[in-house]
């Protein structure tokens, strides 16, 4: 249900997002959260971000390689999920 509400409130999604879009999505987040997000994104090779929330984000990737999985594990992210977006399945990272 929460996913549904989140997906409905997020109206600015595009299938392919630019780096500028990603930065735009960071606006309004606490600097501590921003730093955490940037760290996680760096660990998984800086993918494009489809949506960012206060404690989770959806990246524009449908899979994670072993190196990426190890990277997020090392950073002790809360969870990794499969998110069924309108552009197809994507990876969701909870932090």
């Amino acid at each position, binding site marked *: 249900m929460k996913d549904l509400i989140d997906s409905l409130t997020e109206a600015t999604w595009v299938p392919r997002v630019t780096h500028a879009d990603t930065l735009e999505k960071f606006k309004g987040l606490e600097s501590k959260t921003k730093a955490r997000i940037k760290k996680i994104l760096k660990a998984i090779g800086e993918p494009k971000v489809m949506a960012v929330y206060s404690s989770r984000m959806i990246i524009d990737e*449908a*899979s994670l390689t*072993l190196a990426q*999985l190890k990277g*997020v594990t090392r950073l002790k992210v809360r969870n*990794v*999920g*499969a998110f069924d977006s309108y552009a197809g399945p994507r*990876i969701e990272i909870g932090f």
Partner: protein
Amino acid sequence: MSELDLLIEKLSYAQRKRLPSKDFVFPDADGKGGRWPIQSAKQALIAIDFMRKGRGKESEYGEIRKAIESRFGRNKKVMAALNSMDEDIQNQEGLEEASQIELHELSPHHEKQAKAIAKLLDGKIVEAWDGIHGKVIFLKAHNSRLSADKMKTLARTVRWIGAQKDGWSVGF
């Protein structure tokens, strides 16, 4: 520049530009046969090379092949090249990257591994694939989120993990 050199130059241009193979034509009775007619064995060999590289339209290969066979059937070099081309095409068609299999068709070690992954992800295996890139299983799972502990365990066995509409795909 000789006529043949000119033809070779034109053919390499055709290959670069991916022109259709119908540009290889046999001359008519009056000697006119299009832009790159196949008149000699050397020209036939160039046409075979063109087809071997998969250029042009595959639907036209049969016609060109038939024409080369009828005209250069006694030329051993041309026929050897033609047969070798056929073998190459057959080998290319024979290469299968992965094929869908039943779970029990996996080796006992891999079957055990697949079941362990399915248990860890709390899902049911709906498809299994075996190929040159390894094994892949598709899982249907109610819970589409992995906790940190599960990720840690998973990172020991899998090569990649992918999100699916109602579950996961895992390569190992």
